[in-house]
């Protein structure tokens, strides 16, 4: 028989789930939970400086490990602040558990101090959520939250716990089993066999893979199937790394900022094998003109993604790793030399990188130079903007979970706290955060958290003094009205970083060279490197928003089209 408060039950259940790190900020409505956490020997608390930072630290842990991350926030502003990080996790299917404090049950609905309807606000941005009405419910709710977050298509779960539930003491006989992922769903054999013969008949197939491959741990099966059947592979932003950049079948990213050759190859394919992807508009462009001549096999664990935007000829609903593994022995090998030759021809005609873009003062050159300076097992995190797209275009990603980036929600401010989370999960590994001056300013307070935790994060600011992608669109589509996108203050980011107690370097000071920073990058302490980038450096090629993917602007040999 145990007698415990709700708050202690929460902490004990988290310990029993194997949680060792929680990011959060205390406040009036979650102080009992914090008092119980104070007594925990097993869980390290990471004090963020803004609840959104706490949410992204939990995401960094989850994205780097594949296991659920946990974050805490208080009621009212704590809850509203953390919602952005939860929405971000929802759009990218990241398993996080967010536990928010709430005003006592008796005060709910009275507009009490720091009361907001956290439950109601979090419904559309969570996989599931709970408002706990008694301490006893926690014994069911906490394991259920972990089960839901990790089963099938992962996602965030929010648990709102009124203060009176945290302080309520109950007796109970035994602990519930920790929440574990449910068994995976396996696709139907009949559909699988039809897919195999559709692939065997195809002359110009392309595998289109995304975050689902990462979640399923299916990268090796993608590679095996692609190699056996000679299928070129394109990935979404979320799928980068699932096929190594050096692989001869790798086409890189598709869509808005893809290599021209990749989007053109998709125009020509006769079969699209979509695996763990959701036909996002940034990947497909105008959906009605995406892969116009292709039949579609769609593999996904979430039935609602199939036929949502593009009708599939064969849906394969189930775990994508299992599906690919079952398909692999059944498909014919090779025989697609002409198609691969055609793709090589396109790639030679429209290279993504060439000539002066490789100068280390240019975005591609800088990113590639840094990729050569870091260890092979380094984790790369980006924020959102031009630097993110440049990194996605050229960084030599070799494995799943090497890149952590905000894909679906595109949240500026993601990078720094997510990098801290990744570093907390893997303290022995280098973590490099490519960010922009705009993005960094959206969660710059987490520099303090990085220093306090001595997280081994190297922050590289590609500083163009602007909201670069916004400015680029204004230049292309709004008659060069560069309005509200150019900052009028030239911020001394290294001075700010030093103010937080962090080592900092400035490649714009006329003395420091990138090569001289290899020691700083290897230093296990956090550091920041400011790199001036010309404001007119744009991201090309680019598909205008709403246009078909074949309508690309810019990039090398554009005039060949």
């Amino acid at each position, binding site marked *: 028989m145990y007698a415990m408060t709700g708050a202690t039950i929460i902490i004990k259940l988290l310990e029993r789930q194997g949680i060792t790190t929680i990011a959060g900020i205390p406040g009036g409505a979650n102080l009992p939970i914090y008092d119980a956490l104070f007594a925990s020997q097993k869980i390290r608390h990471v004090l963020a400086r803004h609840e959104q930072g706490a949410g992204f630290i939990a995401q960094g842990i989850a994205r780097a490990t594949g296991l659920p991350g946990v974050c805490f926030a208080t009621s009212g502003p704590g809850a509203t602040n953390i919602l952005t990080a939860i929405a971000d996790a929802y759009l990218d299917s990241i398993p996080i558990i967010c536990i928010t404090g709430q005003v006592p049950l008796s005060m709910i609905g009275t507009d009490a101090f720091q009361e907001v309807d956290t439950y109601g606000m979090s419904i559309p941005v969570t996989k599931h959520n709970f408002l706990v009405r008694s301490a006893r419910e926690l014994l069911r709710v906490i394991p259920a939250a972990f089960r*839901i977050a990790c089963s099938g298509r992962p996602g965030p779960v929010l648990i709102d716990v009124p203060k009176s539930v945290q302080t309520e003491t109950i007796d109970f006989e035994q602990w519930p089993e920790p929440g574990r992922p449910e068994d995976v769903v396996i696709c139907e054999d009949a559909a699988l066999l039809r897919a195999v013969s559709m692939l065997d008949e195809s002359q110009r197939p392309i595998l289109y893979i995304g975050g689902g491959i990462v979640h399923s741990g299916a990268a090796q099966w993608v590679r095996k199937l692609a190699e056996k059947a000679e299928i070129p592979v394109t990935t979404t932003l979320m799928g980068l790394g699932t096929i190594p950049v050096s692989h001869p079948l790798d086409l890189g990213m598709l869509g808005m900022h893809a290599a021209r050759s990749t989007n053109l190859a998709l125009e020509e394919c006769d079969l699209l094998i979509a695996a763990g992807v959701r036909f996002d508009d940034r990947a497909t462009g105008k959906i009605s003109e995406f892969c116009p001549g292709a039949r579609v096999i769609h593999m996904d664990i979430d*039935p609602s993604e199939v036929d949502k935007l593009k009708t599939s000829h064969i849906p394969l609903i189930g775990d994508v790793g299992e599906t690919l593994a079952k398909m692999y022995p059944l498909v014919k090998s090779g025989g697609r030399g002409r198609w691969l030759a055609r793709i090589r021809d396109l790639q030679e005609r429209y290279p993504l990188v060439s000539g002066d873009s490789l100068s280390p003062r240019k975005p591609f050159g800088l990113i590639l130079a840094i990729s050569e300076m870091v260890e092979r097992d380094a984790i790369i995190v980006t924020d959102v903007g031009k630097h993110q797209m440049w990194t996605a275009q050229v960084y030599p990603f070799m494995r799943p979970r090497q890149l952590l980036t905000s894909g679906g929600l595109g949240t500026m401010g993601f990078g720094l706290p997510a990098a801290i989370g990744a570093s907390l999960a893997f303290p022995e590994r280098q973590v490099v955060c490519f960010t922009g001056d705009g993005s960094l300013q959206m969660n710059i307070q987490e520099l303090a958290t990085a220093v306090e935790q001595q997280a081994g994060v190297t922050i590289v600011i590609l500083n163009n003094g602007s909201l670069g992608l916004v400015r680029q669109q204004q230049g292309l589509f709004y008659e060069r009205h560069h309005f509200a996108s150019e900052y009028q203050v030239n911020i001394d980011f290294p001075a700010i970083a030093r103010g937080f107690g962090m080592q900092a370097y400035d490649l714009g000071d006329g003395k420091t060279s990138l090569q001289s920073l290899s020691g700083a990058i290897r230093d296990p302490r956090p550091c920041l490197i400011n790199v001036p980038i010309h404001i007119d450096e744009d991201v090309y090629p680019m598909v205008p928003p709403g246009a078909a993917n074949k309508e690309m602007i810019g990039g090398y040999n554009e005039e060949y089209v």
Partner: protein
Amino acid sequence: MKNTSDLIAETNHWNYRIIVLELTVNNHPGVMSHICGLFSRRAYNLEKILCFPDKGGQLSRMWLQVNEEEKLDQIVKQLQKLDDVRDVSYYPKGAELFVGIEKVLHA
């Protein structure tokens, strides 16, 4: 559980464009928000809704009239994903279901 084409076939058999889904859901205060939130967020039309407690209050039964033939497949799949939704099925007497209530409304 029936698939969407069966549902639509049955609907056409009734010769109405009225589609009523019957849901069995857990009965707690947030369920209605989850269901209605799904419809508003994903821009599905929800014409009529009826809800009664069932099984001694543990569960609720809901009937949703959703005049959305094209999106019906997505609506059903999205409803099935909600953790509190136990079952989704087509309610064959959909056209008649709301008649009595409408009489009260117009009396």
